[in-house]
């Protein structure tokens, strides 16, 4: 791997000769990073970020797992951005998580330019107080037989607000595309707000696409069941929240990172 760093930008170039599967750490200095994974190479990249812009280039058959933990600090605001271009048969696993802030937004854009490219795009908003977080995703299926799978979940406590806008574009030539998107949200208490907006634009005719958004509250029958086993209400709510987030956290393949993110969220 080669790393070139300036004050403004970090550049990572990962080749097949790079150390296998060592986690590359992004440094947060409010600037930008470029991650270039060469043909056939694999990389795991993680960073605790605030304002940031990350650009990813995946060459043919390249694989990248990218975990971004975005922290604005209490009452802070920040905007982050991820732009990915995928060549033939490349695989992206993107995981985004934030505790929110006064105004925290993420823009994620994936262009699947090569046939057979796959993207797993996951996000988690864990919000309380009067925090807000918005995630915008834009997945562009520009080549045939490409697959995208999005799962975004949010926990919304107190008066917090979670927004998800997910756009999927399937171009005319992108036959045999499969594109899935799911937004699941749990409101704890009465004052939280969730805005979930899926947008699909499909110009090819032989594709499989689905999207869904679900917004639910803590289930009182589940709480009663846990209480009936001696678990106090607050601990029962915690257990249910952890259960709700388990599947999205499980999308992180790298064991060490999954544990790290889980601990950071207080889930483990």
């Amino acid at each position, binding site marked *: 791997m080669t790393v070139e760093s300036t004050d403004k930008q970090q550049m990572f170039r990962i080749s097949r000769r790079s150390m296998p599967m060592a986690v590359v750490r992004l440094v947060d200095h409010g600037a930008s990073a470029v991650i270039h994974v060469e043909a056939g190479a694999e990389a795991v990249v993680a960073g605790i970020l605030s304002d940031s812009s990350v650009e990813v280039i995946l060459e043919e058959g390249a694989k990248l797992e990218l975990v971004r933990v975005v922290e604005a600090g209490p009452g802070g605001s920040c905007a982050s951005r991820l732009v990915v271009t995928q060549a033939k048969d490349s695989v992206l696993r993107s995981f985004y998580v934030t505790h929110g802030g006064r105004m925290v937004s993420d823009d994620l854009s994936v262009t699947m330019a090569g046939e057979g490219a796959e993207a797993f795009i996951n996000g988690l908003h864990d919000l309380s107080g009067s925090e807000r977080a918005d995630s915008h995703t834009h997945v562009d299926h520009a080549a045939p037989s490409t697959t995208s799978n999005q799962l975004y979940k949010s926990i919304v406590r107190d008066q917090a607000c979670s927004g998800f806008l997910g756009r999927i574009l399937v171009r005319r030539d992108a036959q045999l595309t499969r594109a899935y998107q799911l937004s699941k949200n749990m409101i704890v208490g009465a004052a939280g707000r969730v805005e979930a907006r899926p947008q699909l634009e499909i110009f090819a005719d032989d594709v499989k696409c689905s999207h869904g958004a679900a917004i639910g509250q803590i289930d009182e029958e*589940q709480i009663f*069941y*846990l*209480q009936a*086993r*001696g678990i*106090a209400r607050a601990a029962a709510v915690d*257990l249910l929240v952890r259960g709700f987030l*388990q599947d999205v956290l499980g999308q992180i393949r790298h064991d060490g990172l999954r544990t790290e993110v889980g601990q950071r969220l207080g889930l483990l």
Partner: protein
Amino acid sequence: MLKIKDLYASVNGNQILKGLNLEVNAGEVHAVMGPNGSGKSTFSKVIAGHPQYSIDSGCVELEINGQMTDIKGMTPDERAREGFFLAFQYPVEIPGVPTSEFLRAAYNAVGRHHGIEALDPIDFDAFIRTRMKVLQMDNKYIDRAVNVDFSGGEKKRNEILQMAVLNPRMAILDETDSGLDVDSMKIVAHGVNSLRTRHNAMVVITHYQRLLDYIKPDIVHILYNGRIIKTGGPGLALEVENKGYDWLIK
């Protein structure tokens, strides 16, 4: 152990229990039988403290630290920590929460209250496996989410497993036999019987006599229209099996 005096209770504004009296002493097993709609499930939910069920009058006392104590003001988890247990007729599914984690959280919550040291996951695993053996449960259940993708019989075994883990002094088993085939029922009954001691007590709610062939009650009550209308020995259950409830209601 449990004393219910002239209990009137409602759910959603409908009064279901209308003057129920019941007294259960340590070492006893009582059966409560009755036709559909007689108030059997309301009875169990009220004693467990379900928030949708309210006590209109009368009282429910549980023996706590050797004293009969009114539990009306206690939350469901406080009741459970004081040794009350309800085996649910319809166990609740909790996606994403592994059964092992749930059981350990419950065990530690109750244990802590009684000054018993919390078990870490490894020690708890060893403890739980001995309990599962009695119920002939496969180890794979504890890694699965609570009751998710469990068959009806597996859910009921899981209820009794929880009872075995928490070791309550007073348990109500709400139609634990419903949805069980004969083999599963024998296993569940064996599990329940293995937990019977001189120091604890149980109320077994059931529609059918057949469960009582395996869990032998000392006393049988017939619940109808929110009240106990007849109390007798084990023979009463057999009589109901043969003659139905009509002769009691008239």
